[in-house]
């Protein structure tokens, strides 16, 4: 048996489904006819959005094609996602997601189908284009599951929500898990404070000056993400216990719900009000400077 994972999301888990026996047989036939469809697991295209499929075998049983020839397949491999990938196979795999209780709803199906038919080229990895990349896609810093994480309670905010600390600490203090009582600003401790008008690029640069990284760091990782109210303000969310994201809006109490009153499991899709631009994730340990 094979499971198919649609590799498309960044913050939330990808949709996964299991092929039926008939679908499994067809997959084997397609791979036997076009072996180049099969790509190693580590050949992911580094971009946000559709990146192909990850196929995983649920058992080590060998499979056969219709000519009863044994086909040897890796336990995990990729299909689709490359610019020259076979769109027909990718579209067929997408249609196999049409199952009861499928995590691939009509909108996601259509978006993926469009991405397969009109693939976007991966951005050039040229540092001189860094600002342009921010301006066009805004997002930099993918969500990573770090091996060591500093996760505070997602329900008890008493450390933050008492006077006078509640008024003296903002979203950046909360994101850094550091109560400086200075209404902290990214970059201020490093002498390079973020300035208006705020955008992903300028705030991210200030974060880097304070010691934040776009990858997991050594030690206990604090995972946070940056969002922007274009031209006016910035805001942060921090990953807390049980996969819930928490935040503190200015001098208001720290909390675990969004503007719709819902628990935040995904800061990308939660209701963020005016803060419409999602800039990506950043990571730090206790050695960052925040003031």
């Amino acid at each position, binding site marked *: 048996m094979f499971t198919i994972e649609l590799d498309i999301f960044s913050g939330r888990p990808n949709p996964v489904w299991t092929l039926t026996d008939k679908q499994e047989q067809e997959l084997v036939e397609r791979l036997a006819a076009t072996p180049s469809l099969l790509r190693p697991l580590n050949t992911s295209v580094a971009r946000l959005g559709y990146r192909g499929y990850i196929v995983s075998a649920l058992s080590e049983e060998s499979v056969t094609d219709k000519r009863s020839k044994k086909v040897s397949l890796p336990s995990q491999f990729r299909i689709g996602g490359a610019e020259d990938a076979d769109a027909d196979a990718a579209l067929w795999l997408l249609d196999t997601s049409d199952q009861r209780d499928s995590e691939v709803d009509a909108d996601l199906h259509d978006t993926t189908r469009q991405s397969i038919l009109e693939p976007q080229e991966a951005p050039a990895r040229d540092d001189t284009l860094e600002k342009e990349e921010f301006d066009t896609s805004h997002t930099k810093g993918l969500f990573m599951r770090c091996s060591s994480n500093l996760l505070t309670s997602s329900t008890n905010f008493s450390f933050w929500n008492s006077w006078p600390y509640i008024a003296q600490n903002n979203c950046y203090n909360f994101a850094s898990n550091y109560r400086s009582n200075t209404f902290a600003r990214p970059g201020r401790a490093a002498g390079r404070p973020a300035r208006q008008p705020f955008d992903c690029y300028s705030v991210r640069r200030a974060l880097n000056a304070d010691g934040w990284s776009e990858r997991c760091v050594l030690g206990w990782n604090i995972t946070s993400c940056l969002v922007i109210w274009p031209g*006016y303000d*910035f805001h942060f969310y921090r990953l807390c216990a049980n996969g819930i994201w928490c935040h503190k*809006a*200015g001098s*208001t109490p720290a909390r675990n719900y969004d503007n719709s009153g819902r628990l935040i499991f995904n800061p990308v899709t939660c209701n*963020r009000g*005016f*803060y419409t631009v999602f800039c990506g994730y950043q990571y730090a340990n206790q050695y960052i400077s925040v003031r």
Partner: protein
Amino acid sequence: MTQNTVELDIFSGRPNPAWRLSEAEGVRLITMLKALPVMSPKVLPEVLGYRGFIVCMATPTAPRHTCVRIYGGTVSPHDSAGEAWRADPDRRIEYFLLKTAKPWIEESLYTIVAQAMQSHKQ
């Protein structure tokens, strides 16, 4: 003489805009506040974005600031002093404070706040 500072509670990362009321504005505010009926406390929505105005008042006889939040038809305590909740169903104080904000905040932000007040249901 009273000194009343007003803060537009709207930002998260950067400090909120704040300004001082003129003496005439301060007197009018106190008069309006005194006329409001007391109400039972209720849960105010904590949101990203517009959250009303925070007014802090001090007088020579009571130099310790007392701060209240004016938002969505209510006046609620905004510090540990524990002032009583008051009802302002027509949101007259909120609109009055918005008017005093005009010289102190960007025009585009003023428009955003005015729209947020219109769309906010009590």
